[in-house]
């Protein structure tokens, strides 16, 4: 199920919320768990068993590991950790990378494996990483093993962040699991945050996504349409992904949780290093915490540091999908980050406009690799962006530009912190009550407009069916 659907908005959310409120305190977590499982099973009625099995063995292994620690059986503890890592990473690899590995190993091509590429269970990359953070932290002794199975299962499967993050590390939420009281303040803030996310998804990401789709599917590119396409994709992926995080954080807050932030205006960065501190923060944090630092980080000399960065970025790339293009995309950032660390040290002395341009250009060039589904298409785009062998513009490209100009301006402003600062300005200038009423009216307006887009875009009549 997705948040931006009629089903979620008008049935799932109100029913879940009502039952949650009505449930006695002891049963509240159980209600949340059950509805999270329904939420997941809705689109993946069979894959839910993979998630449940993962949850069960990680729960037991976590408790075993803690007992080993108490009994001084350090070797058994280590063995259990490795076993858990093998099991859960193995499951992830099996579902995510089988097809990719088989298609790239010529000697496997004619075996029975070559026809076998399992469908990817939704959210597996997210919940695997969440459960690993738990196991590793229990191993390290930085958190206690969770004794309550319902709390633990709820941590893994909590529907707000289940399918698209943020990746909540166990340590960040441990205290909240048993005790996450609701309050009018959290509820109200959560609803507003959810509605902002909903609007970002439906009103912005989906609309600009249509432009990227149109350009990427049309065979002919001009200089103008190629740039328009890449910019459209950059906006789509940011607004889509951050909208999901907003909705997740908002829903979490409605049920009393505080989730970590996942995006902090990434397109305002002045360097790629900064970009990755602002983009998908919980993923970068995860890799730093559980891969980069355990490998030695920067404590073992420059050579090891570069190697460690290489590993982290290759994995980051592959995490996004099983395809060479994601690996190349990850390594592309690896190269830039290493250069920024050791070569471009004087970047910060440039005028800040140039720094912004530098970062945005590299981010956009990276999205081309990420978005294009074949190498030919990637080069096709790069060539058109440089104006090689294509016209500067065409009536059709100009049409697409004028169609989307206002939307692009809104997106450009929307991806900065200007709206946030404007709200802050209003808050200061207006009386407290006035501001509260204004933001309430704004939220409800956004809800109504979002519903209208949700209905209209679902509207695909087969007009010619009966004519």
């Amino acid at each position: 199920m997705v948040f931006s659907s009629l089903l979620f908005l008008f049935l799932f959310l109100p029913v879940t919320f009502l039952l949650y409120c009505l449930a006695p305190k002891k049963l509240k977590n159980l209600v949340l768990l059950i509805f999270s499982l329904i939420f997941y099973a809705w689109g993946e009625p069979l894959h839910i068993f993979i998630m449940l099995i993962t949850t069960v063995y990680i729960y037991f292994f976590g408790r075993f590991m803690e007992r080993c620690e108490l009994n001084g059986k350090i070797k058994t503890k280590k063995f259990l950790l490795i076993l858990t890592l093998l099991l859960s990473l193995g499951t992830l690899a099996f579902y995510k990378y089988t097809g990719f590995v088989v298609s790239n190993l010529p000697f496997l091509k004619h075996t029975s494996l070559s026809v076998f590429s399992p469908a990817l269970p939704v959210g597996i990359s997210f919940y695997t990483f969440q459960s690993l953070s738990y196991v590793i932290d229990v191993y390290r002794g930085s958190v206690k093993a969770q004794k309550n199975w319902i709390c633990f299962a709820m941590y893994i499967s909590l529907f707000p962040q289940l399918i698209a993050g943020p990746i909540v590390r166990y340590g960040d939420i441990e205290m909240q699991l048993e005790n996450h009281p609701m309050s009018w303040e959290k509820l109200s803030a959560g609803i507003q945050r959810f509605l902002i996310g909903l609007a970002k998804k439906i009103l912005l990401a989906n609309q600009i996504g249509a432009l990227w789709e149109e350009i990427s599917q049309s065979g002919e590119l001009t200089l103008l349409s190629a740039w328009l396409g890449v910019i459209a994709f950059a906006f789509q992926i940011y607004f889509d992904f951050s909208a999901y995080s907003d909705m997740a954080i908002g829903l979490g807050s409605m049920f009393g949780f505080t989730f970590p932030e996942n995006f902090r205006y990434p397109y305002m960065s002045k360097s790629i290093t900064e970009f990755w501190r602002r983009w998908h923060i919980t993923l970068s944090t995860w890799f730093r915490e559980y891969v980069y630092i355990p490998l030695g980080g920067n404590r073992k000399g420059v050579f090891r540091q570069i190697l460690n960065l290489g590993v982290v970025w290759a994995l980051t790339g592959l995490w996004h999908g099983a395809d060479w293009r994601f690996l190349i995309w990850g390594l592309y950032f690896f190269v830039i980050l290493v250069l920024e660390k050791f070569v471009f040290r004087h970047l910060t002395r440039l005028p800040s406009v140039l720094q912004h341009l530098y970062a945005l250009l590299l981010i956009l060039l990276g999205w081309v690799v990420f978005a294009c589904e074949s190498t030919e298409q990637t080069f096709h785009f790069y060539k058109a962006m440089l104006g090689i062998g294509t016209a500067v513009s065409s009536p059709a490209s100009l049409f697409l530009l004028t169609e989307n100009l206002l939307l692009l301006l809104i997106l450009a402003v929307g991806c900065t912190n200007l709206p946030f600062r404007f709200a802050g300005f209003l808050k200061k200038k207006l009386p407290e009550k006035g501001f509260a009423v204004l933001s309430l009216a704004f939220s409800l307006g956004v809800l109504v407009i979002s519903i209208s887009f949700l209905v209209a875009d679902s509207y695909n009549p087969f007009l010619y069916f009966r004519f």
Partner: protein
Amino acid sequence: MKKIQITGVLLFFAVLIGFGTWLVLLRDIEFSETENRYLAQKPAFSVQTILSGDFQKGLSDYLSDQIPLRNFWMQWNTQIKKALGKKEINGVYLGEDSYYFEKFTDSSYSLSRLQSVFSAMDTMAETEGIPCSVLLVPTPGIVLSEKLPRGAELYDPDIIHAEAKRLLKHCDWIDIKKPLAASEEQVFYRTDHHWTNSGAYLAYREFCFANDLAPRAYADFDPQTVSENFLGTLHSKIIDPAAVPDSIAAPQNLPKVNILFEDGSSSDSPYFPEKLQTKDQYAYFFGGNQGRIQIETENHNGKRILIFKDSFANSFVPYLFSEYETICMIDLRYYSGNIRELFSENSFDEVLFLYETSNFVTDTGILKLARKYLP
């Protein structure tokens, strides 16, 4: 402060719960007049349908089909998109003078499929040994290109024409684009994808010229306005409050006919005035589409024509009443009979293919010809 927070929370859930309850309790609509299609109904609930995901998909289709106040939401949506400067909404271009045009591009159809359809038509004409003409009506945006938004993409009619020239060796191609474009009259509806009475008349004229017939003058048919409040299919896609309704006119001075429909009913008029009270007013002509409609006229000239057609022919065929003794209209989408037997049982003198282009290149019905006539 807290009061406002509480009000906000309650309002939010009131909207969701209120709307959700309405959605669940509302009496289901079976058929939508606006969209001219059957709507999704409550899906069957069983372990099997849940495991296969059919129930889940069915439920979300059901919700989006049965959503209350659909037109209200659609209107809002169109208004907002127009305010954003959009000239294309839901696959419809907003043109000059309140014209709507369907967005149909080169990537909307398969060229190889078109080639096999043309080949099948040509083989049919050759095998049956009957003179055959082909009249493809250009999509309105092609004809009224000056009313299209600047730069709006449409298919290239020359590609289709070139294929026709190459493959249709035993058929005559009747070009209708130029006369339609040159006409001073309104040849297409603004809010619907069909042509008007004047557009259909121009096609009749060109058809007569191509077949050495003398066309009757337009005024001679005594065309009369039968409706002034027609909002057609293109309007249904966007529900634009600023839409300008169309008028429907139809020729009244026609020879006496007897029309036999596939469902066994018969009529002495091609018009169905009761359809003007429904959403799909274009069904005024012949009451809509049927697999086979056979018309016998009072002209005893022995001329028999077979027309393979889509709905564009429905407003065109009345003009032919004066020229033929028998007119057989076949809509291949609904016709289930054997085409070869149709030819052997009836001695037709000529065959006409009359389709609107975007419909023709995507129509699945016409593939039946390919199955019959291509190896």
